[in-house]
């Protein structure tokens, strides 16, 4: 068992390490044995790249907040695990089918009204939360089942 784990770690490779094969194979070997030695120009470019990636990531986050929000669940549970499960369920089970996509569309039309109602009458929030909980449980079971079948397949 232990030997198998060691073998698996040995056969792991990162996408960026693999991409270096498209630059120069000799550089791959040099860098593997002697480490990365960026020139001052490359170091500056690396910093510029990191800054650009941070900016790109923050733009992505604001875009996700604008477009991919699970309104009611976010309102009731915040960004907690329940919301994550429902988002995953939406993306894996509902989005691939036509009926599922119609359901998502209907939900997106209805959700802002429900959220406004919950803001106006805060006591309804716990009732909506209690109504969503069984759905979260069902989604968790289905996702666990899907992951189980992936692992065995």
């Amino acid at each position: 068992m232990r030997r198998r784990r060691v073998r698996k770690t040995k056969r792991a490779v990162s996408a960026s390490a693999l991409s270096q094969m498209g630059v120069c194979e000799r550089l791959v070997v040099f860098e593997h044995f002697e480490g990365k030695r960026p020139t001052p120009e490359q170091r500056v470019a690396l910093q510029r790249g990191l800054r650009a990636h941070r900016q790109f990531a923050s733009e992505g986050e604001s875009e996700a907040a604008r477009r991919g929000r699970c309104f009611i669940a976010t309102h009731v549970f915040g960004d907690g695990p329940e919301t994550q499960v429902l988002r995953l369920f939406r993306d894996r089970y509902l989005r691939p089918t036509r009926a599922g996509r119609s359901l998502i569309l209907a939900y997106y039309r209805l959700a802002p009204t429900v959220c406004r109602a919950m803001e106006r009458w805060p006591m309804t929030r716990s009732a909506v939360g209690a109504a969503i909980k069984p759905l979260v449980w069902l989604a968790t079971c289905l996702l666990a089942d899907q992951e189980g079948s992936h692992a065995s397949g």
Partner: protein
Amino acid sequence: MPAAELWLLLASCVACVTAAWAAARLVRRRSLQVDRWMPEGLKDHTLAYSERTFRSGDDWQVVARVDRAYRGQSGLIVLVELKTRQADRVHLSDIIELSAQRVALKGETGESVAPVAWVVVESAAGRSAHSVRLLSPHVVWDLASRREALLAGTESPHYPATSRVCASCIYRARCRMNS
């Protein structure tokens, strides 16, 4: 209230309004610039993953950090990779990296990933997106095997196709090509 103080108050108000207008214009221009690179084909997609690491569970474990992945109406995932360059150009290494990301994402989530991805090059001229056709998983695994063979010393490393990459290489003095 003396007239001088009134004028000062008025000038402060005008300065505040001007600053707010300039800031709003800057933000709007920036957001327009940000969205301009987005290809038409991705505009109806939703952002599925951003800056997330995936690991394929195969015999060859590929670990990849995905800049962005969009999900289309059919559920198909499209990968997007950001590169900062002086020239607006796509390299073979970008295609290899995206192909490895495809293997890792598909391996971890089981979701279908499109064989075509996008490389967004950020240069002095701004951002522009280039469509690229990805390598098949078999080619990725072959590359991983070749890399392992190179590091083990059982295969000899090839020289690059052009000597242009050598110009900025710190090892060029020791590389046989230049000796």
